[in-house]
């Protein structure tokens, strides 16, 4: 069940480099553009009170540690770090699930909870290998209803109704 023992060094090195690039991006682009002050000057004098200060300090340290990470990865050779093995198949499976989830979330807004959830569940269960429709169908139909009724009765929570259907009355 354990993955293949791989040398993590190359991955660590790449990660280090990516993080370093990210640090520059964050410092020089994100901070100036994404910190929006209501007024030109703050009422508090002093560098420490400015909203950029903490982010700047943090990302500076982050960049430094990333350099250490990359550097360390270059230095060491052959020290194995357990990394779960992955293959094209496994990554594809995970990606599929994620994309399906994204589609589901957007579909929720348009079609509402009751329509989309059983479909979503059914696709996933079948994808994961349980193909027996006599099993899949009732679970896929039953679970969303149980959830919704439970949440409605107990907390009067309303799950997405779907824009398409918010038409009547």
């Amino acid at each position, binding site marked *: 069940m354990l993955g293949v023992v791989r040398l993590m060094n190359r991955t660590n090195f790449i990660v280090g480099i990516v993080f370093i690039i990210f640090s520059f991006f964050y410092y020089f682009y994100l901070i100036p553009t994404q910190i929006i002050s209501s007024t030109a000057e703050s009422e508090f004098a002093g560098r420490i009170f400015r909203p950029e200060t903490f982010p700047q300090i943090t*990302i500076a340290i982050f960049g430094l540690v990333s350099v250490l990470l990359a550097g360390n990865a270059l230095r060491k050779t052959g020290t194995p*770090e357990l990394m779960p093995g992955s293959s094209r198949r496994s990554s594809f499976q995970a990606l599929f699930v994620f994309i399906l989830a994204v589609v589901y979330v957007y579909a929720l807004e348009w079609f509402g909870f009751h329509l989309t959830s059983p479909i979503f*569940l059914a696709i996933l269960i079948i994808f994961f290998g349980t193909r027996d429709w006599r099993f899949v169908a009732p679970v896929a139909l039953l679970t969303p209803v149980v959830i919704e009724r439970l949440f409605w009765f107990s*907390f009067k929570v309303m799950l997405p109704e779907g824009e398409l259907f918010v038409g009547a009355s």
Partner: protein
Amino acid sequence: MEQVFEAIWQAITLQALIMVSIGVFAGITVGAIPGLTSVMAIAVLVPFSFFMAPINGIPFLLGIHKGALFGGSIPSVLINTPGTAAAAATSFDGYPLAQKGEAKSAIQMALYASTLGDTFSDIVLIVAAFPLAAVALLFGPTEFFALMVMGLTIISAVTGSSVLKGLLSMLLGILVGLIGQDIISGAERFTFGIGNIMDGVGTVPMLIGLFAVSEVLVQSEKKLSVLSNPPETAHLKGGRSLELKELVNVKWTIMRSSLIGTAVGAIPGTGAAIATFISYALAKRGSKNPEEFGKGSYEGVAAAEASNSAVAGADLIPTLAFGIPGSASAAILMGAFMAQGLRPGPGLFQEHAATMYGIFTLLLLGNPIMLLQGKLLTPLFARIVTIRQSILVPIILLFCVVGGFIYQNSIEDVKVALVFGLFGYALRKLNFPLAPLVIAYILTASAEESMKQALVLSDGNFFVFLTRPISAFFIFLSVALLGLAVWKRPWAD
């Protein structure tokens, strides 16, 4: 004195006991579903309490509060997703235990630790609420900052094998924690114009995404044959029962964690999360088997759960003594008290002695009730791990989506959860520990604010953190803890 006994006796009616039981059960259920918080549950149910007699209505709500703090440990153990932020530390050891097939005993440990912790803090509440509350008021921005620093030192206890990666994870957590409005300057930081994250990312969607969704993605990688058949550990039917001697072994941990939980919980503005982190770190330091922590140590589960449940009782201390709620749930509970004419303040225990002692009695009785319900429900919950993944994982994902939506009635939060899910998945594949990220995220906003507030008050004098006694105490403690950590561990990674 006689009156007190009379009041206590009167309070123990069948109706009251039933109301507490329902409350505890609702609490456990709410805590067990990520996305539902006890704040929500108490808020929704509080109007019912308006027209009930206080002796029934208030213990009902208090039961929910209690139950939720235990309930949060269940998904922590079973699916590595804290049901509440307070249960975050429980997943560090609870989940590895479940993976070894010991889900039932892990949840039971959580149950016993929770019950003991809560009982302890309830007793403290009844006996020493006012003096403790007065001490709690001594915590100002300077002291809060020092406390947060101490919370951050726990990160050294959970970095795992690579210190550098642990550090990076922590820094990422800080970056996420910085998203939102800076309360000192009013500036919006990194919100990208998205309304939902203007107050910060939202602890619940983030936890759901970072833990549950990422776990779903990790599980999705498995071979289909593995997923569509019952898991290897299924024959254990969820695991064995916890033995008494195992509980006795961790008695000091539970004791210490209850103390910490009560103390920290009594300070308004600190959450259960930080109490848990501090307890966990100290438990690991004081343990005979520190290397077990993070891999499935019962001590770790006990430490985390005893302290977060201790916060349940302690929350009420500043709430009832001063009318300063110790947490969001406490704020609503306070509303419930006030609706019954029970105004927080020095006079409360005297003017309404009969009612208050009755309520306290039921509060204490809530603990054995929770224990009983827990014992009955645990085997049921634990069996969830015997369900084959091909059915379980989709349902978990459904709960993630629903849970993320319910948090604030907004679909945008679900999108946030998904983003964090992908992020968490990537981090896990790259062998980055998630714990430091979560801890840093939870603590960052408070730490930064407190520091700046302290500096405004001291006119920019940094030494204020060392000159004020309480603050100095925590800073030195943190340095000591960090020093120990550095000294003990070999620096090679």
